[in-house]
């Protein structure tokens, strides 16, 4: 197995568009006649600015930062879901993203079929899916509901299903976006256990969290993002201290 890594060089991610009017004929027609890109309704958000970082084999990295600091955007760039608007991303290894548990279902298909589809989209080979599907189904504890179309599910049931599938694959690079709490109390306990086992397997783990306890137990390295830039990057304890003093000061000021 070759070395697994993530390498970002000068990565920037800018979102541009029109506030209010969605891109489309409605906003495009007037634009053709008035080539004025700086009209007041336009927005230009630099979600990430000049991010360079290397994450190597075996590293567990936490992402901290206030809401809107760019944590989710960075994870999506790492996953290859967002193509960066500048800079380069190199990745070696199979990426397993765990970003959302509430979307990406085929509403008219059964729970079993949705398990198959999700597993397939996460890169699991068909044979492995069929071998594991019983175990995945059992973990969800959804029983006969798995034969029903998922449009009959409650939001908690969606989470159970998605969680069970995502944690059943063998990840090389595992990217998590604040997805720790899953389901009701009883399930959450079970999920926490499975999650920590799962995270042990990942050869690279990058996850964003506001749970400082979790960060300090899981990661030796932490990256602090602020306004789309890396404010600090280093051993978790040091970064955590910096982060706390900075944000404490911000509150007081």
């Amino acid at each position, binding site marked *: 197995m*070759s070395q697994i890594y993530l390498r970002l060089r000068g990565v920037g991610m800018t979102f541009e568009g029109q506030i209010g009017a969605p891109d489309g004929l409605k906003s495009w027609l007037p634009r053709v006649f008035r080539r004025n890109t700086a009209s007041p309704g336009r927005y230009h958000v630099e979600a990430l600015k000049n991010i360079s970082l290397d994450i190597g084999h075996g590293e567990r990295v936490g992402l901290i930062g206030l809401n809107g600091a760019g944590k989710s955007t960075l994870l999506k760039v790492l996953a290859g*879901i967002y193509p960066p608007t500048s800079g380069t991303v190199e*990745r070696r290894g199979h990426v397993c993203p765990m970003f959302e548990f509430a979307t*990406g279902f085929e509403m008219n298909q059964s729970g079993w079929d949705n398990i*198959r589809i999700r597993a*397939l989209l996460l890169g699991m080979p068909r044979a492995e899916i069929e071998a594991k599907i019983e175990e995945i189904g059992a973990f969800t504890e959804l029983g006969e509901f798995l034969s029903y179309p998922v449009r009959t599910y409650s939001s908690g049931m969606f989470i159970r299903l998605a969680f069970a599938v995502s944690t059943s694959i063998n990840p090389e690079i595992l990217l998590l976006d604040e997805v720790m709490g899953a389901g009701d109390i009883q399930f959450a306990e079970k999920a926490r256990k499975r999650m920590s086992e799962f995270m042990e397997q990942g050869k690279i783990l990058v996850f964003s969290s506001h749970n400082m306890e979790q960060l300090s137990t899981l990661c030796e390295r932490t990256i602090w993002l602020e306004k789309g830039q890396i404010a600090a990057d280093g051993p978790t304890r040091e970064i955590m201290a910096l982060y706390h003093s900075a944000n404490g000061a911000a509150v007081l000021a």
Partner: protein
Amino acid sequence: MAEPGAKVSRSDEAAARPARVRTPARRLWSDSVHALRVWRVWMFLGVQDIKARFRRSAIGPLWILFNMSLFVIGAGLLYGVLINQPMRVLLPYLVTGFTLWAFIVTSLTESAWAFVNAEGYIKQFCYPKQIYLLRTLVANTIILLISLTAVVPVQLYFRSFSLIGWLLAIPGLLLLFLAVLGHITVCAYLGVCFRDLPHAANGALQVAFFVTPVMFPARMLLERHLAWIYELNPFYYLLEIARRPILEGRPADPQIYAFAGIYVLLVWLLAWQVARSLDSRVVILL
């Protein structure tokens, strides 16, 4: 490097070299190649779409055949009288033409939702989004193949069935699939930015339906010195490359294949341009 197909990262060859700028075109190309390689994924999704469509319906895909036969009986009787054509020629012509036409129309209208409907997937899984184009092609192709089987009983009844003809239709059908994949690509990308597109396309295609020889033979236009109406119509060539062999048991004229081929090239050129300029923005616009 020795990883199995689906797991190959996109930067294998670039790994050792210093950072290289990935132009949109290069990214699009490597994504498309990657998408083709994971055919198991989009095949499964496409088949699953069809299964879901007919789940809980008593006769399932037979509805396609049932609706088609209703249409054929109705249209056949009416048009047979109106344009005075013998049934044994007209009925197979109508069924084949209408089925192929529906396949083309779907690729230009409904496929605008290919990315929009896959939003939940595109935003959280890292497969290249081109797999959702191929998934649409798979689903549409299954529908086409089911409806085409309606031609067989009609041909058997009129004793005009020709197995050779069906085999000779395969190159034409393959060319048609290429054209349709081009349509799907253009519509899916544009459909993300312009949500009005499928509605507009629907209107335009209704007009096209009346000037394309689907419900009437091309000869009728020729006799009235209106041959240019179909000669300038790319859909005519797309229909003929599959319809002529099925109905007449021999390949279509070489120039018909040539025109269809040129059309496919032009559509793919357009598809490439559209995809290149929108590829990186799709996920943001969704």
